[in-house]
């Protein structure tokens, strides 16, 4: 058992208990910068933990979440690395330091803890939440189709036995509702990045409609800049664009809802890998993935800081 976050093995995958212990250690070691807030409980009563990085009161916020699809293990692993990176770089990296002197950063490393625990104990390929569906033997909802943004439209399923089952109603999943409540109560989130894997894309709204987002030009330019930054490290090829034009129509998605709530810089990532391992990315690729993604996240945060609204 690692005694500190310096001993923590960032090049390996970890189970939920280890990740939650890591969060507690990080908070204990950096209590002036990091706190843990619990925004709700999962269906199976696990805490929905969010790390808050803050240097002052009443700041606007930037949100990152990883692991809403439980089998995408590189995302939770990257989230751990981001958390350590933030505490390491604060006070050293002038850009991050300035961002943190003006904004709070919120990081939910395991957005779907029930699903994640299930991937470790029963089925490595589990994607959805773990709430039973009445009238069906199939369990779980796709939490990235459960948001009140074109809910029930094309690119989501009404069949509980599919991987893109949208759920009985918008925000029916406690894991989703907790974020909805948090975003609304906070009221000052200025950027929101939801991180998935594995098709190497950076996407912005919309997914449920082909009507372009009103900030499309700016979102596109920022995506281009963020991806250029990401590619500068290992030359990983990424594409970018709106969800519906770049991959497919997807209704009820996270960032469509956050964008409609007024969070202009709403993005969703698809991290590595493409063409070799899919969701089974070997652990030795965690750090390169996290490192390159961090550069893009920094670009988004820096732009957010430089363009207040």
């Amino acid at each position, binding site marked *: 058992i690692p005694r500190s976050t310096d001993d923590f*093995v960032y090049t*390996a*995958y*970890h189970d939920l208990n280890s990740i939650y212990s890591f969060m507690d250690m990080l908070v204990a070691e950096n209590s002036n910068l990091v706190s843990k807030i619990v925004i709700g409980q999962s269906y199976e009563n696990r805490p929905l933990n969010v790390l808050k990085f803050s240097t002052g009161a009443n700041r606007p916020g930037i949100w990152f979440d990883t692991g809403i699809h439980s089998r995408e293990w590189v995302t939770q692993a990257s989230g751990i690395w981001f958390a350590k990176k933030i505490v390491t770089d604060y006070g050293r990296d002038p850009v991050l330091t300035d961002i943190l002197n003006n904004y709070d950063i919120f990081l939910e490393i395991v957005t779907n803890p029930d699903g994640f625990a299930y991937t470790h*104990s*029963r*089925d*490595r*390929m589990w994607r959805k939440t773990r709430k039973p569906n009445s009238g069906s033997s199939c369990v779980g909802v796709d939490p990235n189709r459960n948001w009140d943004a074109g809910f029930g439209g094309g690119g989501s399923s009404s069949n509980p*036995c599919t*991987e893109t089952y949208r759920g009985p109603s918008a925000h029916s999943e406690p894991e989703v509702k907790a974020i909805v409540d948090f975003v609304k109560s906070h009221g000052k989130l200025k950027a929101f990045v939801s991180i998935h894997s*594995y*098709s190497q894309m950076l996407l912005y709204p919309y997914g449920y409609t082909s009507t372009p987002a009103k900030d499309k030009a700016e979102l596109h330019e920022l995506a281009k800049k963020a991806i250029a930054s990401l590619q500068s490290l290992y030359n990983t090829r990424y594409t970018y664009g709106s969800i519906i034009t770049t*991959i*497919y129509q997807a209704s009820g998605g996270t960032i469509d809802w956050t964008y409609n709530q007024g969070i202009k810089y709403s993005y969703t990532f698809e991290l590595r890998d*493409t*063409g*070799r*391992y*899919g*969701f*089974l990315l*070997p*652990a030795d690729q965690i750090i390169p993935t996290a490192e390159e993604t961090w550069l893009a996240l920094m670009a988004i945060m820096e732009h957010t800081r430089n363009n207040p609204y």
Partner: protein
Amino acid sequence: KKTFEGDQVLRITAKNEAQIFLLKELSEQEHLGLDFWREPVHESLPVDVYVPFHSLQAVRVFLRYNQIQYNVMIMDVQDLLDDEEREMVKYRT
């Protein structure tokens, strides 16, 4: 614990809209137990599909019959999972 011996992930490259349509039809065959890791959307995007061992032959026949190109992205899903588990145990130890 669910295991995945002999299950494969195929990377499919559709060459036109008709083949995308066929792949969408394939995805609706619930009895095959397919899991589209990357869905059939457009011929410019590859399609990755997890195929349980019991459906491999049927899927391969379907793809060949319709002259849809594919290659094996993951030969045996359980092999990769065993590697992953070994790595985790190594670090825990």
